[in-house]
């Protein structure tokens, strides 16, 4: 990238002004969440005062969230569910993507079509039959129910992203390993997959984000407070009848997303690299 040095005005016009606009749009709701979570109820409901300032900040909503609800447990559940279902999805994704991207075999076209078609199957159609399956397996109200069902949403996407990445990796190293007598499995594990870490990171981040965010299946399969994930737990227990506990809900939103954002900031470089390697060189 060539940095062209021009005047300060050009730079602010080309960079800071639009960037500032985008950041305002992107981050304003977070500012809103932050002030809402810090406002006492009397101030929150006062529409006469300037809404962007907190006059009497309080941590009450955070304290209530952490002591009166199972928020920490939900966070743990969410994390567990997201990590395990992401892991399952990556493994299945590799098992689909590796042959499809690197091998020639009869039926490959059919399989890629079938996998592509599963992207399109609408989730609202599946939840009734899936609820049936989950209950017949006796998995209602267990984390296993969502750990099993989330990969149905994630595997196709993981496979797709990984296929793109896998195609971009040159064949020479594998060929060399094969000539040296390594089995296909060994070649895959020891030679090929280590080259694809950025691809895993981007597919993993994508899957993790979808999993921790999922709402419909969690709403239907998880009804007991101790197996809930953050989105469903917060909606279920911080909404009483027709009253929202706004401050606590916003505290939950912030506590639920900021730590993940910090983790992401370490990976964002790889994420970017992994996502596009495949796409561009397809």
């Amino acid at each position, binding site marked *: 990238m060539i940095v062209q040095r021009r005047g300060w005005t050009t730079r602010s016009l080309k960079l800071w002004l639009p960037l500032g606009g985008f950041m305002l749009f992107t981050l304003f709701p977070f500012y809103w969440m932050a002030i809402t979570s810090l406002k006492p*109820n*009397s101030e929150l*409901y*006062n*529409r006469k005062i300037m809404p962007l300032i907190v006059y009497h900040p309080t941590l009450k909503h955070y304290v209530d969230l952490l002591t009166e609800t*199972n928020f*920490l*447990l939900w966070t743990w559940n969410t994390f567990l569910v997201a990590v395990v279902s992401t892991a399952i999805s990556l493994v299945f994704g590799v098992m689909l993507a590796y042959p499809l991207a690197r091998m020639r075999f009869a039926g490959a076209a059919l399989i890629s079509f079938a996998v592509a078609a599963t992207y399109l199957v609408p989730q609202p159609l599946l939840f*009734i039959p899936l*609820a*049936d399956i989950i*209950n*017949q*397996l*006796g*998995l*209602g*109200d*267990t*984390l*296993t129910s969502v750990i099993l069902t989330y990969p149905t949403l994630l595997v196709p996407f993981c496979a797709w992203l990984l296929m793109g990445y896998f195609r971009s990796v040159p064949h020479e190293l594998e060929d060399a390993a094969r000539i040296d007598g390594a089995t296909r499995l060994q070649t895959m594990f020891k030679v090929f997959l280590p080259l694809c870490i950025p691809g895993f990171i981007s597919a993993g981040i994508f899957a993790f984000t979808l999993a921790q965010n999922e709402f419909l299946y969690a*709403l*239907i399969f998880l*009804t*007991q*407070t*101790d*197996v809930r994930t953050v989105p*469903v737990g917060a*909606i*279920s*227990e911080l*909404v*009483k*009848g*027709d*009253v*929202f506990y706004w401050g606590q809900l916003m505290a939950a939103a912030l506590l639920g997303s900021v730590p993940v954002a910090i983790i992401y900031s370490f990976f964002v470089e790889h994420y970017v690299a992994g996502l596009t390697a495949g796409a561009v060189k397809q």
Partner: protein
Amino acid sequence: MANIVRAASRRDVLTISAATFVGGLFGAARAGAAPQSLTMMHESSFIPPYDAYFKNTLAPAYLKATGIKINYETTSVGSQQTRVTTAAETGNGPDMTQIGFNWAFLFDEKLVDVTDIAQEIGKKGGGWHDAAAEACIVNGKWKAIPFGNIGQLMNYRMDWFSEVGVKDFPDTWDGLLEAGTKLKKAGHPFGFELGHGFGDNHGWLYPLLWSYGAREVEPDGKTVVIDADETARAVDFCRKFFQQTMEQDTLGWTDVSNNKAYLAEQISCTNNAESILYIAKKDFPDIGKVTGQAQNPKGPTGQRFHILNPWSHAIFTHTPDQKAAKDFMVWLMDPKQVGGWYDVAVSYYAPFLHMFDDAPLWHAEPRNLPYRDSLATSHLPGWPAPISRPQSESVAKYVVVDMFAKACAGKSTKEVIADANAQLKQIFRSA
């Protein structure tokens, strides 16, 4: 500490479900002896002490008396029906459940006939209110034991009403329109939900429709009669009421919106359950002091109506020991037990048993008395037709709500009634 306990219980759940799974695989028969435990599923109450009372007082008392453990499982507001659906569909899950609206009919085949104990409890409790029978009797059989009604009343600011010269809450819709017109001019509009919430929309629109003498279907549950002059008059009134007393935003409201607007002192009157007064007294005492509750106004027919929002308890047919579940229900509905349960909920649930008509719970907060009085004029959406499947489809598709909302948004009365008529004919075609 609490976390450890919870973690352990989660493991239990996992083990139990694994066991049932394996048991299912090998076709192991269930034990025929009296059950060690029963599970009751309940939508989590708006009144937190209500759930706590069951868990901490009722369940331990029953364990002590009979040795049977009662598990109390709560679901979130709005997901109870989904949960009952999955339990009924799969024949798996809790033994007993709280149900609402017309679910006694909807899940009829999966619910145990409890006529015997319903009559027994009714006899002991001074008889059931008629409204209870409307919600729980399917084809002549009681399918659930009525518990209480979460009524919807007019919630209004007494101070602002008297500022415009209205001392008592208006007795007719026209009177309310007049008051609202003044109040909106004074900067205190009304706020009635016209959007797609769970209940605050149906809560006033069905009563409005009925009080004008209109209805969706005849009592035969088949003949659609929404296309009538009475409906047209109700729609015309609603449009005027909206234009002269409300802001446009109410068209997009859900159930939370009016609570928020009322507590933010944006609106002077709305139709809601007791939650507004309850929260106001707790968090906004100044507003709590000036909040009044009144029955819905009368329409041109001279009658007033309210929405029936009943909570009842039903037993699933898949429960291994129906007798044990019935025994528990009888015990639960004994005044000794159920009286305490009503009390902690500060009249949020209006009891369906006449013996509680003058119970102390009503006198703790006299402003809640209209909840008791409104029971006699409360009906389920779809009334006067009996509870049915098309009725819930009509509610789920917001046919009546949207008829009014579209008129408020500017469509002609003729057009909105024609739309509703076409939709209802389609919905009731199979009835």
